[in-house]
């Protein structure tokens, strides 16, 4: 097990590593080291590649688990007519996921191998890698590209939750607003600049490289019979572990030095919760986790340690998700704050789980992407799993535990403000609720209730207008520093 390195999070593996091969010896695999560890690059033809992917049922590792062979086929149809582009989605929008980052910083050539293999098979002349933010990952992949002298284009994405959605990535590459497109378009047919595009997750390309180098039979040597291969998991937002599919989750947690605690969230913030009992035994596979009520997703595993209020943690995350909405679909933009309100009501005992269920149902199936669905699933599974805590809240209005913030959230940047009411001046005019209904509602008496989410970008101009228009000048925008001062 490699200890914490300068390059970032801890990386470990259960059984034999494949993607993380060589990490014991090297911090970063440059070209020579990569060739030494993984051997020569084989670039099979498209038909062979598709056959291999079919045989091992290689699935995308970005969360949707789309069969990769099918994707190859769909894009391959355009080989004669179109100018195909290959896009590596390294956006990794979720705060709890680190695997793409790890791959890019420590094994960039594995990813590049996969991209080159796909590009060669599809006779594509353009490879694009979409990276979020500027950090060690960007530097590393840039250096790797320079080493191989490949004509690979790097696109920088904003670090938002929905940045990693495939439609949003394509739009960002095209230079448009990086939000999921309103109408679903098949990237395989119309992607970058309207050309047929093969877009897949970083890990998928890395797996493709391993598949090509090992061959289908050897590749299927680990994992389950229906889901061969390994998978990268991010545990606790701090450790990346490679494990063969089918390993019990308990083993993985143990390898990472944690336990199931109060419950385990699998599949990230669009996934589902598992009770500790279930979590220890459930196999890490799509089938196994889905059967248990969770999902594999992008391999995010977040155990919730004891000592923190689970409901509060869930509320905190849901607030973040509500603020991260792209803001273009009504059911998501307005429905998610409703879920937060319902959770708040649940937490102080004034509401029940039905309130959450009702609020969460509005987004179902509606919207340009899966954000409302995923958030709903996350919230609903939470109230199932933490039933005990719920009862305590309902009866006593609180469980007495503080919220320690164990579930990871991105750091708050300087410009993040909140709306606050100066109660000495507020006279219940109510203009604020009309201008910023996502965040401010009026209670029975006509006074405002300000939701404690951050101010999403599409709300900012209205929030400023509300501050200016309040007849009593009772609304203000505060910055986190000011809030911290007030707290002390």
């Amino acid at each position: 097990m490699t200890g914490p390195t300068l390059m970032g999070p801890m990386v470990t593996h259960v059984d034999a590593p494949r993607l993380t091969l060589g990490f014991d010896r090297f911090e970063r695999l440059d070209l020579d080291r990569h060739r030494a560890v993984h051997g020569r690059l084989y670039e099979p033809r498209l038909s062979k590649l598709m056959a291999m992917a079919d045989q091992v049922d290689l699935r995308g590792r970005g969360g949707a688990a789309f069969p990769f062979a099918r994707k190859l086929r769909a894009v391959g149809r355009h080989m004669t007519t179109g100018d195909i582009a290959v896009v590596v989605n390294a956006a990794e929008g979720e705060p709890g996921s680190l695997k793409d980052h790890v791959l890019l910083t420590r094994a960039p050539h594995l990813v590049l191998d996969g991209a080159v293999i796909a590009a060669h098979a599809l006779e594509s002349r353009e490879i694009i890698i979409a990276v979020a933010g500027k950090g060690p990952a960007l530097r590393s992949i840039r250096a790797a590209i320079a080493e191989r002298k490949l004509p690979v284009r790097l696109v920088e994405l904003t670090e938002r939750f929905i940045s990693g959605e495939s439609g949003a990535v394509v739009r960002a590459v095209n230079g448009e607003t990086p939000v999921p497109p309103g109408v679903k378009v098949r990237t395989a047919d119309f992607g970058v600049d309207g050309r047929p595009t093969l877009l897949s997750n970083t890990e998928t390309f890395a797996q493709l490289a391993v598949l090509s180098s090992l061959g289908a039979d050897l590749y299927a040597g680990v994992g389950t019979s229906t889901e061969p291969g390994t998978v990268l998991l991010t545990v606790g937002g701090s450790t990346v572990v490679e494990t063969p599919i089918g390993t019990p989750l308990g083993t993985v947690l143990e390898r990472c030095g944690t336990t199931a605690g109060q419950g385990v969230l699998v599949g990230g913030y669009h996934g589902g919760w598992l009770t500790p009992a279930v979590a220890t035994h459930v196999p890490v596979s799509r089938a196994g986790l889905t059967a248990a009520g969770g999902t594999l997703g992008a391999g995010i595993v977040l155990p919730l340690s004891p000592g923190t209020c689970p409901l509060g943690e869930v509320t905190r995350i849901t607030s973040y998700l509500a603020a991260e909405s792209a803001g273009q679909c009504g059911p998501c933009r307005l429905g998610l704050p409703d879920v937060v309100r319902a959770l708040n009501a649940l937490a102080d005992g004034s509401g029940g789980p039905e309130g959450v269920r009702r609020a969460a149902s509005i987004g179902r199936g509606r919207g340009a992407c899966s954000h409302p669905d995923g958030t709903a699933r996350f919230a609903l599974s939470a109230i199932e799993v933490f039933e005990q805590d719920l009862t305590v809240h309902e009866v006593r209005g609180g469980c007495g535990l503080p919220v320690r913030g164990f579930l990871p959230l991105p750091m708050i940047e300087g410009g993040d403000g909140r709306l606050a009411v100066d109660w000495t001046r507020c006279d219940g005019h109510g203009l604020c609720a009309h201008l910023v209904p996502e965040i401010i509602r009026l209670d029975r008496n006509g006074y405002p209730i300000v939701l404690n989410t951050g101010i999403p970008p599409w709300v900012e101009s209205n929030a400023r207008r509300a501050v200016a228009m309040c007849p009593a000048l009772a609304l203000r925008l505060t910055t986190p520093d000011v809030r911290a001062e007030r707290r002390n």
Partner: protein
Amino acid sequence: MDTPQSEKPGVRWLVPAGIAVTAGVLIGAATPAGAVVVTEIQHFMDFYSGVFTLVGLTVSMVAGLVATDRMILKIQHRILAQALHRAATLISMAFLVSHVVIEILTRNADVVQVLLPIGRTSAIALGTVAAHLMIIVALTGVARARFATGRRPWLWRALHWLSYAAWILAIIHGLLAGRQAPVWVTWSYLVCVAGVGVALLARGLVTVRPRGGEEELPEESRSKAAKRKAAREASRSAQQAANERIKVSR
């Protein structure tokens, strides 16, 4: 969490379009055919920009006064009235600028008179003072959000009331300076005065009768105020509790 301007799709084509339109206007005005059009525009502005400044100012004041009403208007009407108030102020400032520029070009006023209220005729001096007051008032309006965090919220209202002085001076300036007004202009002055008068009356009623709008006995209004205070306290503490709950303690 500011959306970078480059991300907003609308803004991207706005700047080049604006430049293209401005260039088009500049080129078009240089052509002789454009000269005819521009002369008509100039004639229009020479005659009417002053009038429209006053009309815009009046509309703005009436809208602003109307926006304070709680008895008749629903909240969304109040917001629209405020939006109208801002738009009208903006338009009347634009007309003010064009009025001043045209008067300088036609040598009816000196450049100095724009800055200082001097001159042979007091009429123009009145206009200068009115314009300066208008600008101050508009600036307070723009910076209203700053006052939300300041310690003296009453200051904003006090400064903003200068608009009445500006308006009165503007009316007198309009009647004294310039040409003899045709009948309809005089009537429009009367209408402006009447409009603001009515709006002021409505505003006065709001201050005298707080929300609810019914005549109250002193005890009733006191108990109502007490109830309101209690309700406000309840909302505040509920809010605080909600905030505490998800506050991360370290």
